[in-house]
């Protein structure tokens, strides 16, 4: 595969990038900060065995004008790509967001509007090549409106709905969509939060994501246990959801 990875400098994106290069896939890295990108690209190169060059370009989900040049650079360096993976997003606790309306605006914009705008450009590109894979990290938080993730969950609910629609509309034209819904995963994003049962590690999630991509699955919960947890939560009646804390 020739993969463009947005968000590969940290967390689950880093874990996915490492597993991709280890199995010999070509990776092009998009993200923030030239120094960070350069170091992460060097890391991917070494983990891939030191033979394959890993390119990178700056791309900021807060600046939609950075999307087109970044994708054009990826196209140039890779000589065309067939897969795009987006792990980048913003996260903040509900308490923090309720106190900071500007952060709320930024989070909703980045996680929904700008991510969709980025995906739309990818969609056009991939359809133009006759198809390809688009894998985007949403969240279990988008599966149902819940007390601890009202705002973050809303941004991810929108994203999940968009990805599902995209799958329905373009599946026949060769566009393969994978919507990843991680539960609690121990990354720097969740550092300091109390880990619930079934908390995952980034390496485990990465492995699941690559398997799901290879098997052409449209949705993957990670760790897999969250599929069952969310099935229950989606079906809880409203009067229960008003009472419980999750």
């Amino acid at each position, binding site marked *: 595969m020739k993969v463009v990875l947005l968000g590969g*400098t*940290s*967390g689950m994106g*880093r874990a996915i990038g490492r597993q991709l290069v280890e199995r010999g896939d070509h990776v092009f890295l998009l993200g923030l900060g030239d120094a960070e990108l350069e*170091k*992460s690209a*060097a*890391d991917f190169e*070494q*983990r891939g*065995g*030191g033979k394959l060059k890993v390119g990178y370009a700056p791309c900021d989900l807060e600046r939609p004008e950075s999307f087109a040049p970044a994708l054009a650079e990826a196209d140039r360096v890779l000589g065309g790509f067939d897969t795009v993976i987006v792990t980048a997003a913003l996260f903040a606790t509900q308490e923090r967001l309720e106190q900071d309306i500007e952060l709320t605006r930024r989070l909703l914009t980045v996680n929904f509007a700008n991510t969709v705008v980025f995906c739309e450009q990818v969609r056009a590109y991939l359809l133009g090549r006759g198809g390809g894979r688009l894998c985007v990290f949403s969240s279990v938080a988008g599966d149902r409106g819940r007390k601890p993730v009202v705002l973050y969950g809303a941004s991810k609910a929108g994203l999940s709905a968009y990805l599902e629609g995209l799958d329905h509309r373009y599946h026949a034209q060769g566009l393969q969509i994978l919507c990843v819904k991680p539960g609690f995963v121990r*990354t*720097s994003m969740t*550092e*300091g939060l*109390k880990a619930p049962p079934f908390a995952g*590690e980034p390496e485990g999630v990465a492995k699941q994501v690559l398997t799901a991509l290879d098997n052409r699955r449209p949705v993957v919960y990670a760790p897999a246990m969250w599929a069952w947890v969310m099935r229950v939560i989606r079906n809880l009646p409203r009067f229960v959801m008003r009472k419980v804390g999750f």
Partner: protein
Amino acid sequence: MSVRAVPDPDRGLCGWGRTYLPGTEVRSEQLTQLSAGKPLARGLGRSYGDASLLARGDRVAAGTTLADRILSFDEETGLLTAEAGLCLAELNRLFFPRLWFTPVSPGTKFVTLGGMVASDIHGKNHHVAGTFGKHVKSILLRTGRGRIVRASREENEDLFLATLGGMGLTGHILEVSFTMRRIPSTWMIGESHRVDSLQALLDLLIEKGQTWPYSAAWCDTLPRGGQRGRGILFLGRWAEQGEAAPQLSHSPRAVPIPFELPSGLLNRFTIGIFNSLVYWSHVRRTKRGVITPDACFYPLDAFHNWNRAYGRRGVTQHQSVVARETGAEALLEMMKVLESAHTASFLTVVKDCGAEGDGLLSFPKPGISLALDIPITARSTEIIAQLNQVVIAHQGRIYLTKDGLTSASDFQRMEPRLERFLEVKRRWDPDNEFRSAQSERLFGLGATAT
């Protein structure tokens, strides 16, 4: 991840010996930003005592394990640069197939590069290769007052040498550059000898060390009389191409110990049975064969969380190096201390140490090293003090990475180099920003000291 000493929200931070002190750690990929304002960095928490725990009043340590990028590798010279949180197990996994290995490996692969520098770790090849620090070319550090500095033998030499074995007290180690070594294959030739007395074991250790690059001995501290200190000598070297299978060797899957065993399960009686089993299961006097690197270097890594075998009270280790001439005598005196205290060491390791390195507080120096695992009881501090008297009487010193109970005065009697180290620390860390529970205990450098 079970290979890491994970912080417990109720009990705080602990080292591998599982003695807890208040505090927690925060991890991030961005170690440079994360380390700002933190009194201490810690990797996988594999030091036994309080080296990776916080001084009184400090709350948060910088956890380095997410900062684990490999930044460069030169296939010609073997020079590798990586962030401080890179785990040796990962380095092995990635570089064994390319036929490169760390020049010096400790007895577990679950350590970070930063920890390997801060402890200036030694391995089974100390008598020929020295400590890890000898192979380190440069370090990037956050020193006092926010200065980020590169240190090497050419540049800021005093800081460099104080950081090798400096227990993280000269600043936060951010990146490490060191020279990897070429290996002919991913297999090893191992040889082991059952030896029925301590003196014979030490003699054979030194004799075989002249031809074998990797050597260490397990010994049985329990039998009385001439059999005390009997044991098994383990030797290893890399297999040449053609001596072993052409396939790559694989690390075995580790067996987890999922819960704490009862404290006190490991006592003189049960350890005696275990030791006899180990000793006599080596039926032939000499065994030889092709083994994996994991079997040679990391036999204990076959059990994840093996420290849980000591129960809730945990374990302490006492590793010392004493003069070679009176080595057997000193070791027998230390075993006598354990006997008088009605305790025993579960895993006792004897090693021959080579020349002293240039790290200002590095542990090894020429002599015989003895590592004792001692289950924690109410008398542990007293036992450690008695062991330390033997060490002092035999011109020895202890390994800070293992220690959690030595008194400040005993440590100062073993360490004439301490003042030089503290002088360099004052130069680079004038406000004593970097400290640990260990520096508070041994040097009086805690959160309130100046």
